[in-house]
């Protein structure tokens, strides 16, 4: 059982930090937190992700086919995020940009679920969890934990973009909404592409040396900055719309 202590502590710390950063001022009940967090967490664990990967890798080989398999798996993750976001709307009574923090919480749930699934696979799979395009890992090391934490952060950013994108679509901001969804896809796809590149294209093999220390942090920082800009824009837009509608109401009451 000791083997799960480090990953479980990591997931616990991530939740505490996330709560302190985003929910300290406007707290969320523990029951709602657990419901919103565990829905994507469980969802990503029950999808037979590795069996799907193995099925395809037994039939296809080479850079482009493996990259396509990878892209399919990214789309599967986005579908899981979308399902979780729809579930969120049923659980919480919030609407509009207020939901932003909850979109990120969905990302925390899915990212932590993915992390825990990988931990279980490292220990319960005969020898290693990763095969095919995944990074080779037989034991849970500090480096493995660091990589998983950075990947959780990337899933959080992607979930934020997806949430904003879907929200924009419901508000009939079609082009901005589609752009946000594309960003949500791109951030996961770039991570997937880098992994395939360093495994299948020898001239990019050096990526494996800088993947955890440079590529993942850079992806998170850039994605995070763009997400924050999108969030601020959407917030501003909603405030303007609210103000405009209040003005209309006050004008009509005066007349």
């Amino acid at each position, binding site marked *: 059982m000791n083997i799960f202590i480090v990953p479980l502590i990591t997931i616990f710390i991530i939740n505490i930090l996330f709560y302190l950063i985003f929910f300290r001022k406007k707290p969320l009940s523990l029951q709602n937190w657990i419901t919103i967090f565990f829905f994507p967490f469980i969802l990503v664990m029950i999808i037979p992700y590795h069996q799907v990967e*193995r099925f395809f*890798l*037994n*039939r*296809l*080989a*080479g*850079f482009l*086919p*493996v990259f396509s*398999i990878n892209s399919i798996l990214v789309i599967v993750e986005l579908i899981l995020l979308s399902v979780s976001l729809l579930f969120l709307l049923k659980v919480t009574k919030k609407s509009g940009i207020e939901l932003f923090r909850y979109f990120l919480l969905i990302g925390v749930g899915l990212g932590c679920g993915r992390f825990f699934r990988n931990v279980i696979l490292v220990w319960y*799979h*005969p*020898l*290693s969890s*990763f*095969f*095919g*395009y995944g990074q*080779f890992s*037989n*034991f849970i*090391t500090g480096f493995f934990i660091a990589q998983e934490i950075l990947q959780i952060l990337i899933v959080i950013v992607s979930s934020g973009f997806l949430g904003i994108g879907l929200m924009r679509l419901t508000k009939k901001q079609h082009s901005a909404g589609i752009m946000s969804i594309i960003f949500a896809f791109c951030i996961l796809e770039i991570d997937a592409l880098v992994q395939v590149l360093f*495994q*299948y*294209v*020898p*001239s990019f*093999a050096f990526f494996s040396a800088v993947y955890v220390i440079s590529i993942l942090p850079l992806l998170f920082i850039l994605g995070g900055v763009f997400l924050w800009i999108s969030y601020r824009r959407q917030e501003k837009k909603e405030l303007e719309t609210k103000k405009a509608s209040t003005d209309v109401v006050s004008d009509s009451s005066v007349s």
Partner: protein
Amino acid sequence: MATETLKYSIISRDLVLGEMFYEIETIDQKIIIRSFFVTNQSEEPQKDIELIINREDLAPKLSKKWLKISEGEITIEAQYSQEKVDVILESPYGKKETSLKITESTFDMEQIFFLPSLENSGKFIDRQFPVLVPASGMIWSGKILKVDEDENSVLLKYTLAGEILYLQYEKAVPYRLLTMKAPNRGYDLILKDEMK
């Protein structure tokens, strides 16, 4: 008892990075294949694999691989019996063991390159077979397709776990591996000479 040594150049982007040696020894009913390599950086030969195969049915008996990492050495050993294989992985991070069920036709990943010379039939047919990759403790489906041939050689495309290898063999006995091109690994092996 007979021993044959094959020497290959390890080539990447037209640069010779080192040499790979395969020692094939036949003792009674066993074929033992050992490989080691030297790189331009170190003249000290490094152990790569040791493989023991049953001469009659070509079933693998034992496979051992050594890998050097910055923290030390990883050894992966696969001990085959009739219906199962025990894989033991030892590394600076710890030890792991597993047992897997196998079918009669399961090959070890390392023996595939020598299949034509071991079978000694001269038939380079398209086929699919289960292959154990000891490092991951998984059995994958290996596929061989004949893609080209000329007067002296045959070119096969071998795919395993998403990776592609191009293997060129002599068309005549002893069906030696002439070149191995690994586009996903970034290096090729080219037969240099044979020492007896």
